[in-house]
């Protein structure tokens, strides 16, 4: 068992939010009980239809997406998705997004009364009132984290955006606000243009970059944050194999999330779990916790 900020995981691999729905489709491919946990599709207070299509675009070694938080709303999640997920012996992490303090606070209260194991705070959305993105402003982020923490008793993770000058600053803000851990990275803001139509490929114009292309940036950020905060770090960004996961763990991640890789291979999470095991056997490492943050600089 790995303890990540109070959340007990059977292994260090969690399905990343937005790439795994509520697990239903993947449950046709393997027993979801094999996963450390599932971070569900980003939830909002009210149901959302999301953005127009195309919502995806392939890029060199990655993708841009702009789903726009299509989801059935937190109430429907509690009503129909939690009971489904509870059939499996895995942890349920509710990924929540809002445009105001009040959005987040209400969701935290609803989820506090619901059967989830943790909250992951998606702070890549702009605060409608201030216009700034919550995750890009340390002060705002600290306040937001605290007010969610005050309303939710179980572990709270803050998911950091990489679109900042210093991710250490926002990680520290989350820590100061009482977060039990930080998860990173969310997607990098990007754009692709159809040069024959002279318009962005995505209907939403810009989108979030993910997949192997972002891995070097993600590993660097995970390590920076690991060195500078005292709460656990959940690492992600381009993980496809056990080796990739081990890279994040050595950099400082207590556990990892697997996102875009699920698209190319529905069994990706399982392969990552098995790959970590193989590495540990080969290297004669008994406990994955020995690896966490074991990086030494040259």
């Amino acid at each position, binding site marked *: 068992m790995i303890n990540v900020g109070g959340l007990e995981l059977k292994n260090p691999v969690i399905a990343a939010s*937005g*790439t*795994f*729905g509520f697990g*239903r*489709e*993947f449950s*046709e*491919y*393997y027993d979801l009980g094999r996963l450390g946990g599932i971070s569900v*599709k980003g939830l909002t207070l009210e149901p959302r*239809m*999301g953005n127009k*299509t*195309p*919502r*995806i*675009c*392939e*890029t060199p*070694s*990655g*993708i841009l*997406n702009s*789903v726009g938080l*299509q989801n059935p709303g937190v109430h429907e999640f509690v009503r129909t998705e939690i009971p489904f997920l509870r059939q499996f012996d895995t942890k349920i992490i509710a990924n929540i997004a809002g445009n105001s303090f009040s959005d987040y606070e209400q969701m935290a209260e609803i989820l506090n009364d619901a059967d989830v194991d943790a909250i992951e705070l998606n702070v890549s959305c702009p605060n409608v009132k201030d216009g700034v993105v919550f995750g890009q402003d340390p002060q705002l982020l600290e306040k937001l984290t605290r007010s969610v923490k005050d309303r939710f008793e179980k572990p709270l993770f803050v998911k950091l955006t990489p679109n900042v000058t210093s991710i250490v600053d926002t990680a520290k803000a989350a820590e100061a606000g009482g977060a039990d851990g930080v998860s990173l990275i969310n997607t990098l803001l990007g754009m692709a243009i159809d040069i024959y139509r002279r318009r962005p490929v995505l209907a939403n114009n810009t989108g979030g970059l993910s*997949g*192997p292309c972002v891995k070097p940036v993600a590993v660097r950020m995970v390590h920076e944050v690991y060195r500078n905060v005292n709460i656990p770090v959940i690492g992600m960004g381009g993980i496809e194999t056990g080796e990739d996961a081990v890279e994040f763990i050595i950099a400082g991640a207590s556990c990892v999330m697997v996102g*875009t890789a*699920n*698209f*190319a*291979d*529905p*069994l990706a999470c399982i392969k990552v779990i098995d790959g970590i095991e193989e590495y540990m056997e080969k290297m004669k490492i008994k406990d994955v916790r020995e690896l966490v943050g074991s990086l030494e600089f040259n």
Partner: protein
Amino acid sequence: MKTNYLCRVEELKRLTDTIWLLELDASNIREDIKPGQFFHVKCGEGYLRRPFSVCDFKDGMLRIAFEEKGRGTKALARVKQGEYVDVLGPLGNGFDIGYDRICVVGGGIGVFPLLYLLNKSEGSRKDAVLGFLCKDKVVLENEFENSCDNLVIACDDGSYGVRGFVTTALEKHLEKHDFDIVYTCGPSIMMKKVYEICKKHNIPCQVSLEERMGCGIGACLVCVCEVKKENVLQNKRVCKDGPVMWANEVYYD
């Protein structure tokens, strides 16, 4: 449990300058494959899989016809006999079959799933109205000839078959023949026109949609289309709830 499959390439045939027919040994696929379903195929180049409809499936041999366009299909057009292709599927909801008199209407590369549909349909009358840009683009004519009772081919430029759009040919065809259902696949603008023609003739119509995909299995929500059911607008996933939909729900007014 579902899984992806590695299928051996039996043959890769060039049908036109840009269209290829890939024949895969799919005897390891135990699931039933319904007309209108698709496979999500790893293409060597490119990070994402590419969706391709089942063009035919018989005796363990899976046929996929595809157009060489971008990165992925360019790589797929280079696979060699004996190599293995990683396919995920069969995916999605296929066509509703079991109707007696059916007519399939296809445009360009939209004709592919209609061949398997004809092969799996057992009604008293099976007609096909297919449209292509020009003579050089006509594909699988013999196969369609063998799989239906009445084949009409239209070419926009009149270089082969009847001159004009496939929708014009369909209008003429429906004046003379009656059907219990029309199935269509092709460019969106064509399918919409087909639906309008069907509406005029009071024939139910199913369409097979295209949308860019991520996972292909219904989890990521990148492939949605808006449909109107009982007056409520909702997002349906082309990969899981489709690709086949009822035309009146897609082209609502």
